[in-house]
């Protein structure tokens, strides 16, 4: 057996953090630096392994196949067929890579911040990494669920032990809320398994088998069948919606973020929130298409509400970390909207947006942690003028801010734009006449979120980074404090600048509090991907395209059958009428082919 076979490679990548955790435990007696160094090395090795694996996987995955599939027997006695089955496909490949990437960031931002009980901290962080990698690689329902639950436990302790003042309440709330949701989701998944078993005779837990099985024997979506599909959908929705989180199931998130240590926030915002959307794409859309189609308008609505609601609440925050937590709620709204639009462009955009938000939110949370370490406050009112003291920190914050508010050329724009484009497309020609106005309204309203998003983020940037310094300088540079006002004076004297030797008179402007080397390691890779995805999104869109298409096809077909546009309508009727009356002979857009036509070709 080839030890470097793709399947072994994948297993190795998932297990490496566990080995690292063991090493950290053994090195525990040697003190903080040995532990954190071993954790850093572990995450870097894991990242390298993951990158290699992704490079190996790209050709297969791009073609729409799963890669590195392994099928270890696990619990195959009796009627059960639960396998330790792993593999990557277009849906999971980038999320898998993101998990490995952000784990490095999570370790690096904890470098100086975690001095208390470091062994436990790094062990939990590495176990969390393993679980995150496992969730996206699992090809078996039970395995998926085990990894899914296993992400909760390390994070619960990370928040509960290394968190801030209100950490206990935050940890308990986070745990119970998400557990309650995921237990319901598990119930739904089991129902799917049992339904499939009742039709095929084998009790298979394999996700691919279940997907084809349910396509052949869909769960009943009528009164006769007890609306079973609908109930299963709601059960899955409960689990995934809490995880995303979809408004109004989001209130655990700001609390957990604010109280979590920076490393925990990075993983939470960067990866764990993505599992919700991933779940929708992996299970709800392909397995429960009719229920998804029936719920799509309402989920789309919740997505739009989330965008605007999250942005408005963010606007009222006084705590920088809380503001970014609510911005996550708002930005995840775009992902929700994208999958609910059930248009190829939108769903692909939403998939990319998962990665984008993972990068920008993780970067912003990491930066807030760095600010907190320096000035021991997160209150926007108590911060100010950081740009003068830490120009590169300010630059990075601005970069991730621009990424987050969707500035073109950076990653956030691509996903956002595709989601919005797809939503407009759905509203324009993809829904029945009576749904057109609500859909268009929702699409336009979500674009307004782009303006609100820029508002609260730039407001925060202005307060925290620009203007005169308000907070005392970082403790180890206390002697420079008196020079702070001169920076403000310099700005005020405007055009002619300080003639003569300001090099000495502007000591406060010296970048005394700027990024340290480990902070560069945490942020630079994220910044690189922010630019890469922004400039060459095709690199990342391509490999997921077929898998995303396949996953959404049943849902889109069901949607078209349920409330798609009638065959002869493309432009809004009013527009056609107007064009005809005002401009005789004006071009009337010919009708679209029926919506289902294109989907039949997708296997």
């Amino acid at each position, binding site marked *: 057996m080839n030890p470097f076979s793709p399947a072994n490679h994948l297993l190795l990548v998932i297990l490496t953090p566990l080995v690292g955790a063991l090493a950290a435990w053994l090195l525990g007696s040697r003190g903080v630096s040995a532990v954190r160094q071993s954790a850093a090395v572990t995450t870097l090795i894991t990242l390298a392994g993951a990158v290699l694996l992704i490079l190996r996987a790209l050709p297969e995955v791009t073609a729409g196949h799963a890669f590195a599939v392994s099928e270890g027997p696990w619990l195959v006695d009796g009627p059960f067929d639960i396998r330790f089955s792993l593999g990557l496909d277009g849906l999971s490949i980038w999320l898998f890579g993101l998990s490995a990437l952000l784990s490095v960031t999570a370790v690096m931002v904890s470098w100086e911040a975690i001095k208390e009980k470091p062994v436990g901290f790094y062990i939990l962080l590495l176990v969390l990494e393993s679980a995150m990698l496992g969730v996206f690689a699992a090809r078996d329902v039970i395995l998926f669920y085990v990894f899914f639950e296993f992400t909760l436990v390390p994070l*619960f*302790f990370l928040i509960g032990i290394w968190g801030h003042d209100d950490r206990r309440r935050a940890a308990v709330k986070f*745990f*119970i*809320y998400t557990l309650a949701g995921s237990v319901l989701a598990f*119930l739904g998944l*089991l129902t799917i398994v049992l339904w499939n078993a*009742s039709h095929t*005779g084998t009790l298979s837990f394999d996700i691919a088998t279940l997907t084809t099985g349910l396509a052949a024997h869909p769960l009943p979506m009528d009164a006769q069948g007890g609306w079973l599909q609908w109930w299963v959908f709601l059960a899955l929705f409960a689990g995934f919606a809490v995880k995303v989180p979809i408004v109004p199931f989001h*209130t655990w998130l700001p609390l957990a973020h604010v109280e979590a240590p920076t490393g925990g926030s990075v993983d939470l915002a960067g990866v764990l929130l993505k599992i919700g959307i991933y779940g929708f794409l992996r299970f709800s859309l392909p397995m429960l298409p009719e229920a998804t189609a029936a719920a799509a308008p309402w989920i789309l609505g919740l997505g739009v509400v989330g965008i605007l*609601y999250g942005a*408005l*609440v963010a606007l*009222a*925050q006084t705590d920088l970390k809380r503001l970014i937590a609510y911005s996550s709620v708002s930005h995840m709204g775009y992902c929700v909207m994208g999958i609910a639009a059930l248009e*190829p462009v939108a769903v692909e955009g939403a998939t990319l947006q998962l990665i984008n938000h993972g990068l920008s939110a993780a970067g912003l949370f990491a930066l807030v942690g760095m600010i907190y370490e320096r000035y021991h406050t997160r209150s926007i009112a108590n911060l100010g003028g950081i*740009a*003068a003291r830490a120009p590169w920190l300010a630059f990075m914050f601005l970069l991730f801010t621009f990424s987050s508010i969707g500035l073109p050329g950076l990653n956030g*724009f691509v996903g956002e*734009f595709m989601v*919005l*484009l797809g939503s*407009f*497309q759905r509203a*324009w*020609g993809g829904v029945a006449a009576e749904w057109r106005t609500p859909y268009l309204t929702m699409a336009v309203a979500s*674009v307004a979120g782009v303006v609100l998003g*820029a508002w609260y983020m*730039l407001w925060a940037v202005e307060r925290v980074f*620009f*203007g*005169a310094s308000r907070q005392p300088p970082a403790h180890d540079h206390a002697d420079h404090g008196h020079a702070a006002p001169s920076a403000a004076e*310099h700005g005020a*004297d*405007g055009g*002619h*600048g300080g*003639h*003569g030797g*300001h090099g000495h008179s502007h000591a406060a402007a010296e970048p005394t509090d700027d990024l340290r080397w480990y902070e560069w390691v945490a942020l630079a890779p994220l910044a690189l991907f922010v630019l890469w995805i922004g400039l060459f*999104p*095709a690199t990342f*869109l391509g490999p997921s*395209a077929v898998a995303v298409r396949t996953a959404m096809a049943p849902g889109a077909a069901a949607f078209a059958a349920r409330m798609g546009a009638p065959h002869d309508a493309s432009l809004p009727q009013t*527009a056609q009428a107007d*064009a005809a009356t*005002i*401009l005789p*002979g*004006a*071009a009337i*857009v*010919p009708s*679209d*082919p*029926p*919506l289902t*036509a*294109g*989907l039949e070709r997708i296997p």
Partner: protein
Amino acid sequence: MQSSAANLLVLVPLLPLLGAIGTVLLGRRLGPRAHIPAVAGIGAAAVVALLLLLGTAAQVGAGHGDPLRPAEPVEMITTLWQWATVGDARSGDLAGGLSAPVAPGAADSGGTFSIPIALRLDPLTATLLTIITGVGLLVAIYSIGYMHDDPGYPRFFALVAMFVFSMSMLVAASNFLLVYVFWEAVGACSYLLIGFWYTKPEAARAAKKAFLVNRVGDFGLAIATFLLWMTYGTLDFHDTHLADGTIVEGILGQIRLADEAGYVGGAVGTAICLLMLLAACGKSAQMPLHVWLPDAMEGPTPASALIHAATMVTAGIYLITRSAPLFVGCPGALTMVSIVGATTALVAALIATVQNDLKRVLAYSTISQLGYMFVALGTGTMLGFTAAIFHLVTHAFFKALLFLGAGSVMHAMGGVIDMRRFGGLRHVMPITAGTFLVGAFALAGVPPFAGFFSKDEILATLHAKAHPEAHGSDHAEAGSAGERPRDLAGGVGLVASVPVRPFRPGSMITRVSLSDAHDVSPEAHDVSPEKVGLDALDHPSTWRLLFWMSLLTAGLTAFYTFRAVFMTFTGPVRVPKEAGHHAHESPPAMTTPLLVLAGLSALAGLVLFVTNALSNFLAATPSLTAPAVARTAVPHVFHWDIAIQGTLAAAIGIAVAAIGHLGRRSDSPQLERYLGPLGTLFANKFYFDQIYAALIVKPLEALAMVTAFFDRAIVDGTVDAIGQVPLAWGSAIRRMQSGLVQRYALAGVVGVLAIVLALAWQLRP
């Protein structure tokens, strides 16, 4: 030739980009010479842009001299890479969507959401590239003197080069999505330049305001882009010839341009145009989104010059000109462009009359002059579009000159810019004073300076719309000249022969009504049943009003310009004490650009008008070869009556300014005391900022507070209340927090198992 031109075209944005990167990388090492990479990059780009302009002009060549002979469209496209491709993007499309017969306006002509990074070269782009890089270069050279010793010196030059790069890409992009990309990138650059002195709270606030107000405009462009995609099935300007021989019709491609019925009008078309107008209002600082521009002068003065003259504000003009075929199909939206422009021009001019801050006067004059360009665009005629670009060019020269002159004054006066504290500065800084005076003549529209000619063309095109009967003779000539068959499409020939008709708005997009009965007299369409809703605005009486508003604005412009000149440069010498030892003429790095711009401001208008070179050149821009635009071409004549009216207005304005301010101390009582409450209204800028604060900002902030409270008290409160039920039950073991959770986990698992068993029993095979 094609490929070398393509390579050159790529260089125009690339060189400033490399300059910016070089400045960032080498800035610290170069120290006081950190400007070298940026200036070299922009300078080289300017040379390349000039070469491209000459090359394009040579290609257009044949069209010279006869404005009535429709020009052959000239364009060149070069595609760098595919940005994003989502094949079969519309779920409703068949894979064969691309090979389906291409129908005009068909949404299914391009089912693939494919965004090429494609650049284009045509007369409009070549003209703007030259202005952007040329004026950008002069501003950058000036900044060497102005910004010396600033601690952010390298950062400034990197940003200027980035700004030039973004703006060049904006005008060179051949795709609406790319335009949107650089539309926002320009906004980001301006954010960083306005907030350059970020320790100054006003600068940080002004930067944020500029970005947010622009974002409102971007909102419009985003939705317009979505609607364009939905309507035309592509976002490309140009036609794409696929490998399999099929053609994807671009929105502004030559096939669709030649097709009289190629564009969607009605509600959808009007919506697209109005959303684009919103976007243009944001970038070009037109009402109601003009509020960011006056505050933007918190940035360094060269940055203001760049924003006001070469980059940023011209983006809106460019967008509408480029989209001319879309706009001419929607007379209502087109008229709105003029109404917005004329109103903005007048309101901004009124505000400028009472400002005492020299840069603020210039800022409002920019808004006002951009309003002029909008008025011209809104006429929807060939003369209107070319006059707008003509004015854009001359304005770039004289406004850059005036801003840099103001910067020179500010530099010498120790950062003071309040005109009431100046006097007789012509004795202190003669070059600045002399060049500023040239700029003032150009802005005021005094013959033969540049502004006079471009403004005259704008007034002429308005007059033609207001008095169609008086200009009938022009059109008659046009008619007879245009009787010969035309082949606009350069060989595609979907419309083989369309006789040139008198311009009549209602019939522009129609294919059949050209032979209908109801087209002849201009009066006839007053009662035309086609005119409903917004389109009813397109009426000679509207245009008459707009003409008089513009003429009044011309007088006001001359007044406030010379008020500023007299206050600053004449009278007894008064220098504020902040000036210290700086009170002398600026260094050559600053005065040389002033002299060059003064030369251009003095001569460019005359040369371009007499030869009519710019208009003939622009007429070959594909967008302007659309039949609906091309048939409105009129002979190039000098309208003495309009020129006299415009000159009179300027003369009156200057005379009033002279009476009020010439030879007086600038802090003596001013003319505005005669204005009474109106003066207060003008001085407070018509209370726009206050109205927005009261109507939008405060309510939204209040809503945010309410939402946050709702989130805390209601949403989270409900969650906590539900959570209390089991917590009360488990209060006995509350002390052991983790134990509690484990118990819940256990309970959960037990519960799940129970349900699983029950289900398994139910569903057993």
